[in-house]
Structures are given as structure tokens and as C-alpha cells.
């Protein structure tokens, strides 16, 4: 069964180092099937974190999305390098979510 779209969820937690972290999940139907093949579903999973404790100055530290020409891919070297992408073995948001879930635990529990 598919999720009821759009699905936009946020989770805010203080990590082990006291920095505020935001986990943002967005899955939505678009009309652009070329950009988000095969059915136009755009998926963005990201973790945003304060640069320093208490500053509320945020940066994206991990991102999985699915736009063309890459399909599902992660940005593994954020925040320093925005251009590096790595294709992930996921053919839909469901499989991408499993990878992302592991990453959330890794990032939020990092000491």
C-alpha cells in the first residue's frame, strides 16, 4: 500500500553533543514523471543539524533524494561537499527509507 501523499514529517531532537537536530521527511506526488520517474513521486529525506550548540544556525548533514539523472542517491559528504552523490540501492521511497532510518540512528547517536 502507498502512503497517503503528501507526507511531510519533522522530528526535532537534541543529539549526544547537545546540538539541535531536525529529521525531515517529505514524500509528495508531482506531475514531473521525467524528473522523478517512474510515477512522479518526489522523496526527500534529510538530517539538518546546528553547527554549534545553541546557535540555531543549521546545515544539512545528510540527504537522500531521487531526482534524475541519478534516481535514488545520497549526499554522503555533507555539509562540506554538496556535489558528491552516491547512488543507493533503492528503487522506491520504501527501500530508501530503510537506509535512511539506519543513518538517523548513526547521526543522532554520534558522540
Amino acid at each position, binding site marked *: 500500500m502507498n502512503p497517503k501523499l503528501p507526507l*511531510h514529517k*519533522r522530528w526535532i531532537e537534541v543529539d549526544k553533543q547537545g546540538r539541535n537536530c531536525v529529521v525531515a521527511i517529505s514524500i509528495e506526488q508531482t506531475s514531473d514523471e521525467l524528473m522523478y520517474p517512474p510515477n512522479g513521486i518526489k522523496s526527500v529525506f534529510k538530517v539538518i543539524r546546528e553547527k554549534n550548540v545553541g546557535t540555531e*544556525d543549521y546545515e544539512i548533514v545528510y540527504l537522500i533524494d531521487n531526482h534524475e539523472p541519478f534516481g535514488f542517491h545520497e549526499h554522503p559528504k555533507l555539509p562540506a561537499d554538496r556535489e558528491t552523490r552516491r547512488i543507493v540501492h533503492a528503487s522506491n521511497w520504501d527501500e530508501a527509507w530503510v537506509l535512511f532510518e539506519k543513518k538517523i540512528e548513526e547521526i543522532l547517536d554520534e558522540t
Partner: protein
Amino acid sequence: MKLKILKVIISSRKVFIADLRKAIHSGENSEEEDHSISFDSIENFKRLMTANKLEILMAIARLKPASINQLAKLINREYPHVLKDCRSLKVLGFIKLEEVGAARKQLAPMLIFDYDIIHVKSQIEEIFPITEQSNRVLLTAQVG
């Protein structure tokens, strides 16, 4: 008159992930749950949702400023501080910032959707009225 609600949920990471997994896999997310932001503690929510940020949300809903610059003037605060608060509210999921103007250099602050109140579900429930309509409706409900 039905008020549109942005729900703030206080729960553990485990519960959030379990709920999300359920929504993704079974399609069981309700309309109400679509518009929710989850925090790990009420203390964290209160630390981040300062009086200044609440004032920004109310000003956006009621006065519809065309830019952050205009918003800063309306609430009589310094632009850099208002910009910082708006960026934080965007990251937290309460507002969106849309590029406007010919050179797309202006940022127009808007509520993430047209919610009237923020309903915080914790051990003690709290309601933050955002729109003028919400004030009227809540007052009527109290009198009634």
C-alpha cells in the same frame, strides 16, 4: 467554524519512527497527522519556540508581510534577528520562505500551511492561537 491545527507532538524517537514507518508502509497517516511536528521533549519545544518566534508566526498569519524586511518593521525588531528566527522556524517546519521579486532576492515568509492554532500535545495540553479567527473561536468556545 473549524480551526486548522498544526499539531506539535512530544514523543520518543522510537515512537516517531514507528509511527512514520506505519504511515509509509500502510498508508495510515491521518489528515491531522500530516500536519505535525514532533519534538523529543516539551523543554526542547519551549526552548526553541520563544516569545519572539510566536510573535513572528502571529504577524505572518495576521499581517501577511511580503518580505522579511517588512516583517521586521511590523514587529519593530532588527532585520538580522528576524531573519535568523525565520530561518530557524523554517528548519523546524513552522513556516516556508519563498523567493520573490524580480531578482528573487526577497524572501516572503508564509506559514507552512494556513493553520489557525498550534496544539501542543504533551502531559499538559497547550494551545497557541495564531490567527485572529482562532482568538474569536476560542473565546466563543470558552463563553459557550
